[in-house]
């Protein structure tokens, strides 16, 4: 199993550009999550999904959108990139009954200038 994979690893965007961060898991987990990590701030939940077709906002959803058309994929969309979205983004997955343990991808480092 590859676990949770994320692409790209790095990206530089100009203000106002848009992009999609990709996340795929091959563990048949029903839950998937997107976090952002800023220095000294820990991980903040952006959006999460409890299964295909079901998504919900986390703590910091503004400026982002998500969709979940399949169990495996959970892309994160930035429509109008702003410098405040410079961060490291992590995708994670979890299986109901898995006692809360989430499995993380390697992350995408995004810089908006």
């Amino acid at each position, binding site marked *: 199993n590859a676990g949770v994979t994320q692409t790209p690893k790095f990206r530089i965007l100009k203000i106002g550009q848009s992009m999609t961060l990709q996340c795929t898991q091959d563990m048949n987990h029903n839950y998937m999550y997107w976090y952002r990590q800023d220095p*000294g*701030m820990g991980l903040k939940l952006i959006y*999460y999904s*409890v299964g295909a077709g079901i998504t919900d906002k986390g703590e910091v959803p503004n400026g982002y959108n998500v969709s979940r058309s399949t169990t495996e994929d959970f892309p994160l969309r930035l429509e109008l990139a702003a410098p405040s979205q410079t961060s490291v983004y992590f995708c994670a997955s979890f299986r109901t009954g898995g*006692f*809360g*343990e*989430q499995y993380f991808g390697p*992350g995408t480092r995004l810089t908006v200038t």
Partner: protein
Amino acid sequence: AQSVTQLDSQVPVFEEAPVELRCNYSSSVSVYLFWYVQYPNQGLQLLLKYLSGSTLVKGINGFEAEFNKSQTSFHLRKPSVHISDTAEYFCAVSDKEGGSEKLVFGKGTKLTVNP
């Protein structure tokens, strides 16, 4: 909603010294507790978890943590650290508010092991 406080943002220690990274969480209701480790430029990896039962939990790489319900704490310890333990450590608590399963993370503790 749950919250997690990691009391130290940075902890420098010398190699082979003991270390304790402190974590307190907000609620005394039944919770699951986790410590994750993040090595430089990598994702998060589970170090150990408390679900129920024995309050002393052993994890990978010689780490252990003790669950203390009365003090709502879950401190991480290692009796003798190595240079390779240099990383950021995150404490997390399960949150089932609204029926969805989430984790709430602390802000992290950067452990630096010096020779």
